[in-house]
């Protein structure tokens, strides 16, 4: 209906008035050249004697080298956690809460340092690490600290007891935030922790180790060890670990589930996603477009709940796509440390390769390819914001998780059609609904096979809200009251 009414008019977002570069200063950041393993309250040399580099993806320069934990190191960490568990689990709940509050406050005090390191190590724009990752991570500690002495209210008429040693493995997309999601509820419920950050982004977790040491938390309650897949496997397979919490890829999630089959280890998995973001004709279109931009380009699309499949109702499809393309032109891709930057660097060379591979696949599958015309730096791993229009449900770019700034666009006519298409995918982590009509929101949110459904907003996170998925997106919930459950025996 609107199709014929639009003219060929176009807007020009290139102006001679430009913003001033505003990169964060990194001189005051204290980083060691080499990081060891944080076991039993101390940084110790790895048994493996091996170290690996962690690289700034925006400059391709090495930032530091980090110890690689082998099976013996993992065993040492688990033993330290087991030893600490006896005393920690009997520490009064109020006292436990006190330590967690202290960690939260120390994180807030060093928020600037944390956000700059997060951006250097992972490539995400400083705007996000400063405004979202770091404050939210601190909030998870605050929130769970509050639960520590109220567990009998969280689980009325039950007797919640800690499980023991929790082995936790976290991904590279939100390194500090994921560490907080995992550590905070485990401590609040009286467990001890062995946690492994991802090999490409270990630095903020190691900074967190410093904060934990400074907080006076008893030795061995939290052990932070670094390494790649082998180290993770050693944690999963260690016989004295009581619980595994994993956030990462679906493939690895499946391996973990196989590995612990037949043991009495408890498991929660938060895996991949391929969320549908659905725009109806009656939606506030400009705000919906903004939500779509945030949904897919937030953290370069390295978000398991990214709104990577856009469904637009037929009648407004042309207008929405035009608005999307215009909005993409005003996105700034570049130095993640610059506060003007909207989209930072792709986390690693490997991930950039994977995204480029999917872009090739999408082109071969015949979807209409569009990228913003923005400049990208010559050095470092960058990818322009990308759309694939007229994508089909059976395209691989629609079915598989790309984990990059790539959005597929499909249109739909009826509500039944969009429900079917949105759910017709192996994943089920999140979904977005954009409409001015409340009843439509309630109708749809009940029918989405997704753990989180956002209405007229996207990518909103809060420590009080549970998060987790259906189907190949995993099981178990993190955050909120529900997030305590995987860490207690009732």
């Amino acid at each position, binding site marked *: 209906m609107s199709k014929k*009414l*639009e*003219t*060929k*008019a176009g*807007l*020009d*977002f*290139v*102006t*001679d*008035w*430009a*913003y*001033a*570069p*505003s990169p964060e200063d990194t001189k005051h950041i204290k980083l060691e050249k080499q990081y060891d393993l944080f076991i039993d309250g101390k940084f110790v040399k790895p048994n493996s004697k091996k170290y690996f580099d962690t690289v700034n993806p925006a400059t391709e320069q090495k930032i530091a080298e980090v110890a690689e934990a082998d099976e013996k190191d993992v065993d040492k960490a688990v033993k330290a956690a087991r030893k600490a568990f006896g005393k920690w689990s009997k520490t009064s709940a109020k006292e436990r809460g006190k330590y967690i509050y202290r960690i939260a406050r120390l994180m807030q005090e060093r928020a600037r340092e944390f956000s700059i390191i997060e951006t250097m190590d992972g490539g995400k724009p400083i*705007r996000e690490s400063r405004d979202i990752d770091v404050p939210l991570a601190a909030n998870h500690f605050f929130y769970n600290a509050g639960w520590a002495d109220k567990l009998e209210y969280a689980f009325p008429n039950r007797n919640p007891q800690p499980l023991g040693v929790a082995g936790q493995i976290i991904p590279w997309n939100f390194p500090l935030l994921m560490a907080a999601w995992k550590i905070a509820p485990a401590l609040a419920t009286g467990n001890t922790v062995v946690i492994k950050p991802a090999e490409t982004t270990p630095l903020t977790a190691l900074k967190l180790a410093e904060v934990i040491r400074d907080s006076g938390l008893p030795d061995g309650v939290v052990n932070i060890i670094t390494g790649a897949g082998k180290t993770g496997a050693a944690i999963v397979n260690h016989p004295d670990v009581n619980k595994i919490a994993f956030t990462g890829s679906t493939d690895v999630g499946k391996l973990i589930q196989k590995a612990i089959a037949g043991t009495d280890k408890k498991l929660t998995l938060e895996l991949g996603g391929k969320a549908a973001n659905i725009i109806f004709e*009656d*939606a*506030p*279109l*400009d*705000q*919906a477009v*903004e*939500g779509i931009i945030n949904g897919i380009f937030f953290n370069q699309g390295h978000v398991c709940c990214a709104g990577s499949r856009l469904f637009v109702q037929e009648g407004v499809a042309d*207008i929405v796509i*035009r608005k999307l393309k*215009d909005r993409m032109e*005003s996105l700034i891709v570049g130095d993640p440390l*610059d*506060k*003007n930057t909207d989209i930072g660097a792709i986390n690693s060379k490997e991930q950039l390769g994977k995204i480029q591979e999917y872009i090739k696949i999408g082109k071969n599958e015949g979807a209409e390819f569009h990228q913003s015309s923005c400049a990208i730096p010559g050095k470092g791993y960058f990818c322009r914001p990308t759309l694939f229009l007229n994508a089909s449900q059976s395209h691989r770019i629609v079915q598989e998780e790309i984990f990059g700034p790539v959005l597929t666009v499909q249109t739909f006519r009826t509500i039944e059609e969009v429900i079917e298409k949105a759910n017709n995918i192996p994943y089920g982590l999140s979904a977005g609904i954009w409409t*001015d009509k409340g009843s439509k929101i309630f109708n749809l949110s009940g029918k989405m096979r997704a753990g989180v459904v956002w209405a*007229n*907003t996207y990518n909103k996170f809060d420590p009080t809200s549970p998060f987790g998925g259906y189907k190949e997106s995993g099981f178990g919930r993190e955050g909120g009251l529900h997030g305590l459950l995987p860490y207690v025996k009732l």
Partner: protein
Amino acid sequence: MSTRIILPDFRNTPAVDQVGIEERVARFTTRSIKKSSKQHGLKLVLNMIDLTTLEGKDTEGKVKQMCYKAAHLHDVIPGLPTVAAVCVYPTMVKTAKDALKGTSVKVASVSTAFPSGQSTREIKISDTKFAVENGADEVDMVISRGEFLKGNYNYVFDEIAEIKEACGAARLKVIFETGELSTLDNVRRASEIAMYAGADFIKTSTGKISPAATMPVTLVMLEAIRDYYYKTGRMVGMKPAGGISTAKAALHYLVMVKETLGGGWLTNQWFRFGASSLANDVLMQIAKETTGIYQSADYFSKD
């Protein structure tokens, strides 16, 4: 463009989500504007100001002084632009026009029983004609908010169209008094009515009601301008007025224009600030960028 314009149903204008608008607005305020970027931006701002005096106690003397200031903002610093226009009551148009002879500064006149708009159609039209005959280059009219809130959109549309006709060659700015429209959905609707009825500019407020211009309201109007431009190929200007008194706030508005409508609107042909005290704050910032020190308000002439 020769596209035939089909009038939309104004009862069904696109919805606006207030939370989303506020989130977007917050992003505009975090862009970095300093050093040469700031200097450039500030000069743009100066050149977009409609220097305004709209008081019952206005005198010819005051208007003349303001007109001199409009063309000579701060002669201590060479190379400064003039403001875009002065904005006065219809009775002061002649005085202003004479005082501004030989400059590029335009004369804008409020009309249509400004600021309340509570008068008959005939009086509003003659009010407009009087201003134009006295030499007004631009007319700032107010809409009938009562009729708008009643849902009498045809009345509002027709009134704007008739005033536009009465304007002749003068450019018409249509003031919504958004502080009285109560919702952003209403702001969006008023924007569409005004543009389709022939407005050359849409303007937030009279400056007599609080809240006057805000960033969320302005963003809604800029988005309406953008959609209208795509539909018709015709550019419409934007004028936030009232309440923008600092250089920093003005720069945030420019960021919003740049990222919503692009460079085409970053001139005083398509964007204006209605303000009385903004100019001096901008001058103070420019002086600071040149000399490195802040001077007191006494170093900048008021009128």
